[in-house]
């Protein structure tokens, strides 16, 4: 009888509520609160940029501010973000166009051709280069790249066009070294490793059977890659390219150091320009007038919108081609 009671007691010894169901509730709600704060941070970014910039947006109008071509923080206090939108889109799209094929080719070599040890080295090297901070690339650009490219490329081309093709000169612009082309090249250098790493990942996700099937049909190595590997991984590659574009659009320090910072259209190939991110970082600390500060915040809001579109398109591409998994870079 007593023994029976004892075993009953032992079995019915349930853990305390705090340990059991209550603990579960507390833990789950704690986690949900943390998760919701992450959600609200993103929303807060959009809302705070909009409301900080609302003075400028309401004064010049949503589209008026977007398409305004004058950015005058000294006399007329008139602000429009069009020059910066143009600068951002031109430099980052050009950088994407320049970097896409070389980056994918490196990824093909790493994932398909290279022996395992070499692929391992290249992959780590690429990831290492991707981790170099943009200020470090910037200081290299200011002291090494810009003087070199000015003396050995820009000046000869400019002098040649002065003599032989005078119509070209205004398009080329001032060959001072700091300008749109320099910024584009630096952006290209910075996003190549990023595109390569993402493309490599999606090549690695192609099943072995896919390659074997193509080989069994008598395809050469290149034909296997072209017909079986690339079509299978194109979603990952394109999504990676969109993410790289997003990187290029948001790249701030290296561009601010090398683009020359000119606020008025038209921009020329060699001549100075400006991007949305670079104007924010250059002028924010010196913005005294309220309307100037609000305008910079509004530029940030438009930058947010552009990045949002690019990111959502990348997510959509990835979803559409449904290669599962993501990468936290």
């Amino acid at each position, binding site marked *: 009888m007593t023994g029976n009671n004892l075993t009953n007691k032992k079995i019915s010894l349930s*853990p305390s509520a705090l340990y*059991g169901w209550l*603990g579960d509730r507390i*833990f*789950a709600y*704690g*986690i*949900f*609160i*943390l*998760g*919701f704060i*992450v959600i609200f*941070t*993103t929303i*807060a*970014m959009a809302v705070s*940029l909009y409301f*900080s910039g609302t003075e400028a947006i309401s004064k010049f109008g949503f589209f008026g501010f977007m398409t305004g071509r004058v950015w005058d923080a000294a006399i007329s206090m008139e602000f429009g973000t069009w020059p910066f939108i143009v600068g951002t889109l031109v430099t980052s799209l050009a950088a994407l166009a320049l970097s896409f094929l*070389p980056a994918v*080719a*490196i990824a093909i*070599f790493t994932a398909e*051709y290279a022996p395992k040890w070499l692929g391992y080295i*290249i992959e*780590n*090297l690429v990831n*290492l*280069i991707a*981790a*170099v*901070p*943009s*200020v*470090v690339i*910037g*200081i*290299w650009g*200011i*002291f090494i790249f810009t003087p070199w490219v000015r003396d050995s490329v820009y000046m000869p081309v400019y002098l040649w066009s002065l003599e032989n093709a005078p119509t070209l000169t205004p398009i080329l612009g001032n060959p001072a070294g700091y300008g749109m082309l320099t910024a584009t090249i630096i952006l290209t250098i910075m996003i190549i490793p990023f595109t390569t790493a993402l493309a490599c990942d999606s090549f690695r996700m192609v099943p072995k059977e896919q390659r074997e099937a193509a080989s069994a049909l008598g395809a*050469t190595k290149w034909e296997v890659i072209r017909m079986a590997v690339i079509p299978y991984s194109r979603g990952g590659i394109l999504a990676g390219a969109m993410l790289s574009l997003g990187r290029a*659009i*948001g790249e*701030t*320090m290296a561009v601010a*150091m090398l683009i020359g910072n000119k606020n008025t259209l038209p921009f020329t190939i060699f001549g100075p320009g400006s991007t949305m*991110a670079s104007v*924010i*970082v250059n002028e924010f*600390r010196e913005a005294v007038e309220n309307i100037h500060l609000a305008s910079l*915040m509004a530029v*940030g809001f438009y*930058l*947010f919108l552009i*990045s949002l579109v690019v990111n*959502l398109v990348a*997510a959509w591409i990835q979803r559409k081609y449904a290669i599962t998994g*993501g990468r*936290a*870079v």
Partner: protein
Amino acid sequence: MISLRRRYIRDNIMLSLIILNTIVILIPLFIIIVYVIAKGFDALSIDLFTKELGSPTRAMMGEPTGLVHTMLGTIVVDLIAVLIAIPFGVGAGVMLSEYPDHWANPVLRVLNDTLNGMPAVLKGLLAFTLVVKPMGTFSGLSGGVALAFVMFPIIARATESALMNIPWSIREAGLAIGLPRWRVILSTIIPAAKVGLVTGFLIAFARAAGEAAPLVFTSFGNNYLPIKWTGWFTGPVDTLPQRLYNLAISPYEHWHDMGWAAAIVLLAVIIASFIIARFVIRDKK
């Protein structure tokens, strides 16, 4: 129908183009790193780690200047950022992987990735409106918050994929012996996914440690050590990437050299965390 011979020729042409491209692109990229390291080594000195920067005249008069306040400031700001980012990042990651049925998860996943893809300047602007404006001053705290915004989306993504790699049977085993869910997560899942989590922290740290854009208008920069210790949190603080930017665009020759030295220190920090993440931890698995 193309003959077999021409197909082989095309095969070889493509292979040589790809190899040529790889060599032509990768070697210059590697040379940039080597160049920065070589140039930075020449500029390193003991003064760099023991003296403050001071005014530009100090450098022009040839007096010893250094970046000790910058190094300490970087440690303070990065530490604040890590302390803020880890709970939120891990929390969001746990929510995504351990409570997969929660209705907010699709939203969280999309918004977390969106935040990750947002330019770092905008994270700085957010920290400016959330922290600098209410405090009324640029501060180390706001710099830490700005860098935390850079870190936690990366940590969340890394946590999610690390926890997803743990098979469901382990969770079921834990639940079957009567552990409550929180205990299963804290004592079996997270220890099992430790390697992935720490790698994620290090990658996030490496990414945030190099960001200058959000710090320019949050921690602002400072040429001197703060007078009181609270100055690290409530006053303007110098950090390596932001100081590197200011040195590089300054007109003083001596400061340019110091910029190279700052570059190599920054690069060393980032390469160190990169190597720990990629090789040291991975081998322990």
